[in-house]
C-alpha cells in the first residue's frame, strides 16, 4: 500500500499523542500499513503474550516506552490487528485494499480521495517529531 506524506504524518501524529518512541512507532507503522511481520517482541506484545514478549524484549526497551505503546495500542490500533497470534498473522496476510479500508475507518490515514485533494491543494504538512 502506498500512502502519501499527509497520511503518514496523520498516522505518526497518533504516536506523538502517546509519546511513543520512534523505535516502537516504526515497526507498528510498517506492520499496520505494509503488513510486515513486526518481529518476535512486537508479535508477542500484539498477541497479548506477556511471557514471550518479556523473553524476546531488547535490553534497551524501557517500561516507560512500553506503557506508552500499550496506551497507543488501546487507543488507536484497529482491533482487527491485535489480541491474538492468529489476528497478527491474518493482518499480515490481508490484501492491501482491506488493510487500507480498516486504517481509513479508524482515521489513522486519509482516504485516497482526501489524499488527492490535499496533494492538489498543496496543503502544508509537518512531520511529527518522535523521540
Amino acid at each position, binding site marked *: 500500500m*502506498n*500512502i*502519501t*506524506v*499527509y497520511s503518514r504524518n496523520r498516522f505518526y501524529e497518533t504516536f506523538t499523542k502517546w509519546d511513543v518512541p520512534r523505535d516502537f512507532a516504526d515497526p507498528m507503522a510498517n506492520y499496520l500499513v505494509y503488513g510486515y511481520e513486526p518481529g518476535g517482541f512486537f508479535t508477542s506484545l500484539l498477541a497479548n503474550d506477556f511471557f514471550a514478549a518479556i523473553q524476546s524484549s531488547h535490553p534497551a526497551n524501557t517500561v516507560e516506552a512500553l506503557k506508552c505503546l500499550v496506551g497507543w495500542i488501546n487507543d488507536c490500533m484497529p482491533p482487527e490487528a491485535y489480541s491474538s497470534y492468529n489476528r497478527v498473522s491474518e493482518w499480515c496476510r490481508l490484501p492491501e485494499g482491506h488493510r487500507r479500508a480498516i486504517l481509513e475507518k479508524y482515521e489513522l490515514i486519509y482516504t*485516497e*480521495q482526501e*489524499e*488527492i*485533494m490535499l*496533494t*492538489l*491543494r*498543496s496543503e502544508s504538512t509537518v512531520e511529527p517529531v518522535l523521540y
Partner: protein
Amino acid sequence: MTDSDRLITLLKGPDWYAHKAAKEMLMILNQGKRKRYKSMNSTADKHLSTIMDLFDKEQSVRILKTWLTTYSLPLDPDRLKTFDRFHEQFGKFITNNTELIKSY
C-alpha cells in the same frame, strides 16, 4: 462540446482552458444566488469531464491544481459526479507523485 470548440480548445492549450473554466466557475460563485454551489459543481463536472477527454494525465492534473490553488475554488469531491472517474484515472498517479505535483 462541438468539434470546432474541441479544436479551438486543443489549439489554445490546457493553460488557457484552466483559466477560462476557473473564471467561469468563479463568476457563478459570485452571482450571489442561493444555489450557486450546486450550479458551480455542475459546471465543474462539465469542465472536469472535458479535460479528461481532451488532455493527457499531467495536463488534466495541472488544470485541477490550478482551480484549487490559484483560484481556491471550493470543489468538493463528494458533490462532483465526475470525480470518481477522475479518481479512477489519475488517483494513483497523484498519490504516487506528490512531490512532482507540488512543482506544477
